[in-house]
């Protein structure tokens, strides 16, 4: 399993996950730079993602929606702040309506992804930060991706891998 470290900062509502991938940095960058690859990894199998706009440049936007088992659609957007190809990028991830207008009343997370060469592969560091416990709670309650129950189910696959 590629995850090598997980840190929860309870005071700053920040999750930092480190993963080692058996592929060069350029390959990992490609996962994010190619919308067709990004949508394969962003949403869980039960809520597959469809990436619509994809502008991975400073100030650019990436928009996506995820489709649930009932055909329900949940849209989100990234607002890209910094890009250092292929070493990483930073962006805000928020909710949007189905026309991809941001919904400012809903929480936004600040994310920094970093990719560095490590032992012939790539060490990826994912930092995701929420403004408050309420914000995080709201995101989870909305079933940001699959909702509590389904996300818990994913542990099965992980434990099995």
């Amino acid at each position, binding site marked *: 399993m*590629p995850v090598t470290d997980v840190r929860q900062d309870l005071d700053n509502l920040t999750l930092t996950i480190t993963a080692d991938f058996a*592929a060069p940095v350029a390959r990992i960058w490609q996962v994010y730079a190619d919308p067709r690859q990004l949508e394969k*990894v962003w949403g869980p199998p039960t809520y597959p993602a469809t990436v619509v706009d994809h502008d991975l440049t400073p100030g650019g936007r990436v928009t996506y929606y995820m489709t649930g088992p009932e055909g329900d659609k949940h849209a989100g957007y990234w607002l890209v702040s910094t890009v250092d190809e292929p070493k990483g990028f930073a962006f805000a991830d928020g909710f949007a309506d189905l026309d991809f207008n941001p919904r400012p009343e809903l929480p936004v997370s600040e994310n920094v992804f970093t990719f560095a060469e490590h032992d012939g592969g790539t060490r990826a560091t994912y930092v995701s930060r929420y403004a408050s416990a309420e914000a995080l709670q709201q995101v*989870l309650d909305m079933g940001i991706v699959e909702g509590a129950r389904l996300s818990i189910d994913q542990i099965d696959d992980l434990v099995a891998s």
Partner: protein
Amino acid sequence: MTEESADRADALFHALADRTRRDILRRVLAGEHSVSALAASYDMSFAAVQKHVAVLEKAGLLTKRRSGREQLASGDVAAVRSAAAMLTELEQVWRGRIARIDALIASDLDPED
């Protein structure tokens, strides 16, 4: 992260890392269940189910009370919703994404895929 919160996260993760325990948690979050009623729902011994309940209790996800000869278990919604639990839940989302990236890059090497 403090030692104490790290221990709590470990206990939470351990508690949730088992399909039966997650299923038990789902049931007791929906309403109080007797341990014997829970045990009847699974193809395993009463003692085994009781052990799962104890792990969830230790992680603070479930509370038990006694009523006559019955032990009644209910889910602690507040604990499930604690910051640590929320970050652990979020962690699963990220782990899912990482596992999918891993699968995607592994498929590069597999011409059959």
